[in-house]
């Protein structure tokens, strides 16, 4: 029974899917299991009885020695995780086909072997967590993508209203501090319903995408451009006063109107009406900025469309 139990222990140590090795107080290797042999390419005969640092000079010696010291001195367990230190030994993982680049990601546990109250050896187990680390990274990448998409409009790829208003709120709070002036353009495609009715919704979508592509080319470096609703768009311009914002708005109007929008057989002349507002002393919330730009937009519509309007010209 004793023999069987010993044989089982040996079987487990040799065949288990973990690296297991041990060192004594002089850092000589006492034990080196099959996993360690297979992945390091170094046989038990080559390394057992030899010094760890001499056998593996590439090991992170300062860091690893501190780990061992804490086990020897405190008789304590020590750990290392792939998230902080991806690997102890540079082993190739066993997924050369499906796997990512790089080396086997490892979680290590350092355990003291105590005899007569003294730590005589440290045994290290090394778990291959490459699979887990890949899943974890994929999950993080997916989350990042989901978060980024949550801020975007599905059709045009520019920012959506929810994100835009959040950024407006922050920029407005910054202006209240006080910070630099903040301007806003709101614009709406003229007779958009007609485009949809006469050419179909796909043509309407094409117009929205084309405008989302054209407008940023005439915006100053610092801006935030969003689809605000159906055929309505908004541009936040931090640092610009009303007069500068009107110049930008005129450039946007021209960029939309000066060339036909075309896709296959469909060619359309499209125009937009624009309203501009800028922070003024009376403003206490970003919504006031939005309402004023919106009111200016409808003034531009009333005055005949394809033009820029602002309610408080000359006040800034």
């Amino acid at each position, binding site marked *: 029974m004793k023999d069987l139990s010993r044989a089982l222990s040996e079987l487990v140590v040799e065949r288990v899917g973990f690296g297991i090795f041990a060192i004594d107080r002089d850092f000589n290797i006492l034990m080196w299991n099959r996993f360690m042999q297979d992945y390091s390419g170094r046989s038990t005969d080559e390394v057992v009885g030899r010094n760890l640092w001499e056998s593996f000079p590439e090991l992170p010696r300062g860091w690893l020695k501190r780990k061992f010291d*804490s086990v020897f001195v405190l008789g*304590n367990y020590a750990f290392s995780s792939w998230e902080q230190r991806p690997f102890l030994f540079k082993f190739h993982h066993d997924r050369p086909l499906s796997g990512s680049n790089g080396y086997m990601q490892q979680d290590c546990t350092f355990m003291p072997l105590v005899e007569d109250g003294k730590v005589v050896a440290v045994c290290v187990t090394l778990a291959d967590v490459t699979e887990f680390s890949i899943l974890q990274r994929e999950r993080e990448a997916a989350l990042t993508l989901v978060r980024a998409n949550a801020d975007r409009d599905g059709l045009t790829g520019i920012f959506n209203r929810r994100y835009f208003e959040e950024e407006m709120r922050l920029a407005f709070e910054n202006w209240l501090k006080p910070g630099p002036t903040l301007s806003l353009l709101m614009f709406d495609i003229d007779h958009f319903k007609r485009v949809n009715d006469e050419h179909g919704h796909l043509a309407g979508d094409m117009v929205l995408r084309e405008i989302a592509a054209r407008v940023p080319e005439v915006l100053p470096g610092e801006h935030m451009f969003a689809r605000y609703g159906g055929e309505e768009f908004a541009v936040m311009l931090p640092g610009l006063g009303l007069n500068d914002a009107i110049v930008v708005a005129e450039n946007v109007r021209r960029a939309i109107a000066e060339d036909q929008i075309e896709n296959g057989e469909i060619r359309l002349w499209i125009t937009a009406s624009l309203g501009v507002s800028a922070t003024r002393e009376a403003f206490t919330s970003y919504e006031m900025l939005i309402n004023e730009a919106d009111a200016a937009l409808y003034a531009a519509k009333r005055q005949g469309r394809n033009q820029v309007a602002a309610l408080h010209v000359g006040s800034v």
Partner: protein
Amino acid sequence: MLDCEFTEEQRDALQEVANVGMGHAGARLAQLLSAFVALSVPRIRLIQRAELPAALDEMMSFADNVTAVRQGFKSDINGEAVVIFDGEGMREIAIAFGGEEAQDEHDETEVAYEAANILIGACLASVFEQLNCTLTYSAPRLIGRNIPLAVVVQPDTLHWGAALLLEVNFALENRNFRAHLITLTADESIARLRHALDELLADI
């Protein structure tokens, strides 16, 4: 209903074991870190689940956000240990435990793990070896970096009735560094701890 009440004898014995344990732990830490480590007299309280936040609040004096690392320990007495570092002290901890300054967040987390593991190991081993228990530990895990103390332990996520709370705090010579270690031992493990204390008392 488990009988969790300690007799006065058991309570005294536990406090004594904890005091002696922290003495040993301090000596071990000093040897490892080559610096004097001041450990407070451990405070031990038996609490009901709902009392935990108030008890922690009372024991700890962190005004700002904290970094917290947890680790489980096991023998016939099981429990969980949490080390709570004050946010300001993380740089100091990196120098004391890591030998160099942390370069980035990853380094800082690694140092927090390292320091928590060492503090927990030194203190718990020193206490439990007097009760003839050899502990095994799970790998340290981050509860959170730079989080309010109130988020570290949330009573509605806990599943025990009564627990023994042990708190000790550390200061390191010449360094502006503070950390608290709390360990929680719940329900059945309390009965086992009382049994172990009885055995210790019988040996004296």
